[in-house]
């Protein structure tokens, strides 16, 4: 009983973190038709920037917001000044994002050295709380709550605002969106800002759990990819559900079948690609 309870809690907390990681990835992928391979690096950069801000005695939450904004601005610069020059050349754009992933990773290595750095959770959340006779980290529960709030806000933005409607139009049919007068290029910059900022904030919020270390980027990117393939490209609901499904599979899978720890994450992705290539919430290619 306790096993199921605590592993369920673990799954929910990890799912929350995965959502913060993959929501931005999914939005960018959906609108721009390219996987942003720098997403893991932006996530890691978010963690590192927040570490520096916290060394300046800024409180954790402020550091998270500022770091998210900074990474978002970097993302929009990347889109506006580099990716846009390669418009129409999707292969080139993917390679550029990969190049940026390397540049950011090396920049982090130079600036923050290769030693892993711990991120302290806010004081109030540092002690484990006791739930039904077992200890569970308060901070992970906070991450879950925050990710649900973010999911709500993003849903409202995409489904209930004009900008959201324009983004959805761009995802569904870019040519048509253009022909009815939507400045899709502005949307690109905006979505890149939003996606990168989400990655950055995810990196900060993940910091107290994962720490910052070289290689964090390369470990997070495949997770985003797995979630988005399962959930469906460009779908927020897909990213949300996908995150929790993947987290549950990861936690219960490694706990129950430890020998399969390596493949367990990728099995659902492979099965999805075979059975329902558009993902749970994606639209079939027209």
């Amino acid at each position, binding site marked *: 009983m306790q096993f199921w309870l605590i592993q369920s809690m673990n799954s929910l907390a990890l799912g929350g973190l995965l959502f913060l990681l993959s929501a931005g990835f999914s939005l960018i992928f959906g609108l721009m038709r390219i996987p942003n391979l720098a997403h893991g690096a932006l996530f890691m950069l978010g963690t590192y920037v927040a570490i520096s801000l916290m060394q300046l005695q800024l409180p954790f939450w402020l550091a998270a917001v500022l770091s998210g904004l900074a990474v978002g601005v970097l993302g929009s610069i990347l889109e506006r000044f580099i990716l846009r020059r390669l418009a129409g050349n999707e292969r080139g754009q993917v390679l550029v994002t990969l190049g940026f992933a390397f540049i950011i990773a090396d920049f982090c290595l130079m600036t923050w050295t*290769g030693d892993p750095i711990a991120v302290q959770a806010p004081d109030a959340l540092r002690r484990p709380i006791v739930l039904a006779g077992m200890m569970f980290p308060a901070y992970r529960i906070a991450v879950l709550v925050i990710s649900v709030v973010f999911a709500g806000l993003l849903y409202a933005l995409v489904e209930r605002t004009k900008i959201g409607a324009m983004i959805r139009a761009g995802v569904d049919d870019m040519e048509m969106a253009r022909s009815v007068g939507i400045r899709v290029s502005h949307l690109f910059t905006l979505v890149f800002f939003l996606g990168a900022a989400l990655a950055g904030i995810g990196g900060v919020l993940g910091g107290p*759990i994962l*720490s910052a270390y070289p*290689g964090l980027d390369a*470990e997070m990117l495949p997770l985003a990819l797995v979630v988005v393939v399962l959930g469906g490209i460009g779908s927020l609901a897909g990213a949300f559900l996908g995150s929790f499904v993947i987290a549950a599979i990861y*936690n219960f899978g490694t706990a129950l079948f430890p020998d399969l720890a390596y493949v367990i994450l990728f099995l659902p992705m492979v099965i999805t690609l075979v059975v329902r290539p558009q993902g749970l919430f994606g639209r079939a290619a027209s």
Partner: protein
Amino acid sequence: MINLRRRTVLALGGCAVAVPMIGRAEANPIRIGFLTIRTGQMASAGTQFEQGFHAFLKARRNKLAGRPVEVFAVDTTNTPSVARSKTQELVESRKCHVLVGPISAFEALAIDDYIKQNEVPTIGTGAADDLTQRRANPWFVRATSSASQCSHPIADYALKELKLKRIVTIGEDNAYGYEQVGGLQRVFEAGGGKVIQKLWAPTASPDYATYISSISNNADAIFLGLAGPNGFRFLRQAAEYGLRSRMQVFGGMNAIDEPFLRNMGDEAIGLVSGSWYTARLDTPENQNLVRDLEADYQVDAGTYAASAHTSMSLLEAALSSIGGKVEDRNALMHALRNTPISRSARGAFRIDALGNVVGDVYIRRVEKKSGKLMNSVIKTYPNVSQFWTYSAADFLKNPTYSRTFPPSPNLEH
């Protein structure tokens, strides 16, 4: 794709390190191929490895046995295939006389055949047991530790001094993890202890929560067979889950390393581990190393810095004993294996018949002194061999430590 980056840059960087030739025309430089890691998870280890190496050469004004030294550094990216091709480059195009590195066990295994066929003297730190055991390579020596070498004494200490009886182990799901945990289990169970649960985590595991939640409640302690950032992350996450209020935590040779302590909180205080090195050793060579790293790089010396430094002490002593004639490979290899080392960062040591170090292993406990966390020595096991107290012949009759050896009769989970 990741493996491709930096190659060219590094090759050039290697040349740039070349030392200006001084004086005598006949003094051709000793060409050292240096295999480090500058990419990914192990970049931190690689950085320390380089710092320890350069601190050693700088203190000797880039000379060994009276001859200038030329260094060719390459980034293996912690990938066996890259380590292999870089080794070939160092030997065939750079004409290196001797190799220092690679760092990781699977990299060392990847170049094993090559250095044997091409007769390249290599001072490696890759810990794979069999490199100096069942598949001993005549061209390979190791001055640091085999994977299981430090696990035997920490198991002895856990039984006799920590009085642990029932423990859980967690190790990386690779040969390095199996050998560390296997060595521990063998000695711990031979002395009457019980390993009641064994957990194996993939080498890259960002989140250990699943494993931490699965740890049995009926254990006295958990042993960490995790290296570098993995040990660091596990300890952080274990603190989140309040694991240490349930049981003791103790670790293998690089689970709790000095460079990581700098970035850890007070949750590290009291952690016990067994290793062949700690920055707190008061050997003169170690004091130099610690001081130089602090002065030149503002970092604390850790196991990986000491790995390179100690390997170079071995090389220097061997070269001195043959008058610096690095070109005579057979003489150099003979000297590497037969020169007792009286001064090195880790203390005095010698190399056994199969090429592995026989030296002191230290039991360390993390303490906070003047605001700084450090590994203080609480017990020294002198002259520990890779075969522990067993005879080499008996030891080698057993299979290599693995997931299934030694067998685990006491598992409850």
